[in-house]
């Protein structure tokens, strides 16, 4: 049994301190230590993108990182976006455009798109497809996801303008 290490990770603005095995994946830490089960795990080898979270603002595969690597860092997960009553504009657009079927890949897709839309607030369809090409979805054929991003881009205030 490995030694335990103290980690302090800020997730969605809340500081969590835990003792973890060094081999504990960040995805398992979020899901099973912190109970933030909105982040899903689809392959554990970094391809499907379901476990994507923001690590200091950048999208990463939480299944390819250890929890100890997140010590002292900021992590954002889908739980930090909108609430059921007040969805984030991107979530709202996903709802309007029927971009969700089983919903398993959805949190990872949303977390991939957040920084993308910040960088590129008015993307073309081709750019959107490129941006989500690291997120596999087996249900939607991607079309309604693309439509949702186009819709969100229309509705979201462009941060570059202020």
């Amino acid at each position: 049994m490995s030694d335990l290490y103290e980690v302090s990770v800020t997730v969605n603005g809340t500081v969590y301190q835990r003792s973890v095995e060094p081999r504990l994946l960040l995805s398992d830490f979020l899901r099973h230590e912190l109970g933030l089960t909105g982040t899903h795990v689809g392959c554990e080898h970094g391809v499907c993108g379901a476990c994507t979270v923001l690590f200091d603002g950048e999208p990463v595969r939480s299944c390819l990182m250890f929890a100890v690597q997140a010590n002292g860092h900021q992590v954002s997960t889908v739980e930090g976006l909108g609430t059921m009553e007040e969805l984030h504009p991107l979530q709202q657009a996903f709802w309007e455009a029927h971009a969700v079927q089983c919903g398993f890949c959805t949190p990872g897709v949303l977390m991939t798109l957040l920084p993308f839309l910040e960088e590129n607030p008015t993307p073309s369809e081709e750019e959107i497809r490129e941006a989500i090409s690291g997120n596999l979805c087996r249900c939607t054929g991607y079309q309604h996801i693309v439509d949702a991003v186009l819709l969100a881009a229309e509705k979201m205030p462009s941060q570059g303008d202020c």
Partner: protein
Amino acid sequence: MAEKYVGQRIKRNEDPRLLTGRALFVDDVELHGMLHAAFLRSDYAHARLVSVDVSAARNRPGVVAVYTAEDLGDLWKPGPLLVPAPHSVENVVFHQRTQVPLAKDKVRYVGEAIAVVFAESRYIAEDALADIWVDYEPLEPVVDMERALDADAPLIHEDLDSNLCAHLAQEKGDYQAAREQADLIVSRRFLVDRGAAGAMENRGVVADWDEKAQHLTVWDTTQAPIPIRNGLAGMLGLSAHQVRVVAPFVGGGFGPKIMMFLSEEVLVPWGSMQFKRPVKWIEDRQENFLATTQERGQVHDAEMALTSDGRILGVRDVFIHDTGAYDPYGMTIPLNTQSHAMGAYDVPNYYTEVKVAFTNKMIVTPVRGAGRPQGIFVAERLLDIAAKELGIDRVGIRRRNLIPPEKFPYNHEIIDQAFAPLVLDSGNYRLALDQAVKRIGYEEFIKDEQPRLRAEGKRVGLGIVVFIETTGIGPYEGARITVETSGKISVATGVGTQGQGHFTSFAQIVADQLGVDVRDVHLVTGDTAEFHWGTGTFASRGAVVAANAIHAAAVAVRAKTLKLASKVLETPEEELELRDGEVRVADIPRQSIGLGELAVLANPLRGAVEPGTEPGLEATDYFGPQYGATANGAQAMIVEVDPETMMIEIKRHVVVEDCGTVLNPLIVEGQVHGGVALGIGNSYYEKLVYDENGQLLNASLADYLIPSATEVPRMEVGHEVTPSPLNPLGSKGAGEAGAIPVPALFAQAIEDALADYDLEVLETPLSPNRLFELLQGKEKAE
């Protein structure tokens, strides 16, 4: 009654939960004191198990138990046969050989479970797998389905005389006589290889045995919770009322998540009863490739007999179907293939014969499409080849042979997967084809665009195919609908849901009947504690069978509501209407009573009740169709092949579907898009590559290519509506239609793009590599 919701593009009730990460999936279930299971899986496709030494694993700290087949006692026996052989066909041969919970004496595929570890954490359970020592005596593996049927092939099930699992021949008319009349016979051999279902969520089971209550709760990524509850109760010696199976949100099903009492689904609940602690098992992606069921492998020797003007006189199809090492799903897939190898055509004479072969590969059960894509591939390819030989336009030859609208119901006479005669209930197949022709711009492309692009050196091609999809088979589904005292409506049904939008489309039906807001209809699916009877979500049957059961129950609740309201409002029922959550006197809207108030009156605490009155505004009803409703459609695409890399770009993709009455077009279009994406994978990217030892070489998402957003094109979806006469809603299933014709479509489009090579595509899936190989040695025609 005005239909406010059915047929509308309603956004889904379930989405806010899914979008905010608040929806419960099986791996999200965390229980106090939970153990974790991990399975040791065979490294060999075919080997004798000489010994399995688990002593080191048992001694690892944190390990609670390690079991092999020897430890399972009475639990160790072959699993149930989920679908029996079709008793209504004469001379059917079927050898039932279902999987066991843990292999004993021998292993029959790579990934077959040999031992199970229960430990305090998943990490420890997986560590312990490495402590187990298995002594294998390798046997010659039987990987190829044709080889499997050779007289000298090693036996996979040694108590059988051969590796023949099943044999079934069916005939309509007299094919041999038709053949003698024919002007043209085209015969070809077609190969279809295996693919994965590839749901983004892997399988998983959590079980919690409550010793004091003597009750077992199982959260299972299943498409069919009620049959699983019934089966588990039997295996574990419990009454069905002691077992609750919950299929919460499930991250994609696509067939294999019907779940079929493979090792994990049986041993996890059993383990929970042994240890009186909750147990969780969550499959990882590699296990999903090795130990989740797969589909599609078939070899067809098929021929079509035609007149010189392109009329089909008959089809003959003799094929082998690879069932893998065991056959828990009976003959569903080859029966579907037999039902679809005549395509959407008026075929008067048909001979179909299948031999099902055991092989040393993962078990085969339905994957979205379930034998239908193979059948359509055969029908459409034969017709394409015939059209070429006869010099007839491919759209023209299709129009000539489509079943005409006046011939419905059209009886194909052979027996289908529901063990009933294959009767196509309704349709106007020509409409879908004509719409596809128009949308893709067929004439303009052939006459102008293609020659122009070819002159620029571009290899562009067009494909256009038609298809049917048998859907909505019985036996039945049911639903219970209750008006709550809050005025909101609760609905319970037995089917599970894996993204099909049942929480919305079913709610639309209820909201229309009861005059409430669709968001006030709360639906529970897939929880056996909520509804006792049913089968499950498969065979594109949810919107047909379950939806009509819900419709029937809603009609009954409406009747009860009107009857009571009539009494309370002292107004004849005919003068009442249900709107905005209340019952009103049509001409005097102020004279009304809320549904919630009526629900209270229907369940009084005091006072006498009239004899024969049931309490509450509640009804349970069932629906079982006479036979399945058959959807149809056409798809067209334009592709460009890069002659250097053999990469294919889909420039346009048109889908026209007819699934009868559409409950929610947004949801149907989503189903179509997803189905097409899978079809694209099945055509050009996704192939499970087994080597000669039966090892799967591409058991990861890095090596097995599920199409991403850059491979799947924007699709244009059109609808035709010919309602099914077999159910009150007029619906037909839509779940698999997208995927079914795509391999046939791809093949035709690629041939067209590479017309100068005289290429015949007789196999699927292709890949850039495979296409390159096929073109090697092909003389480029001048």
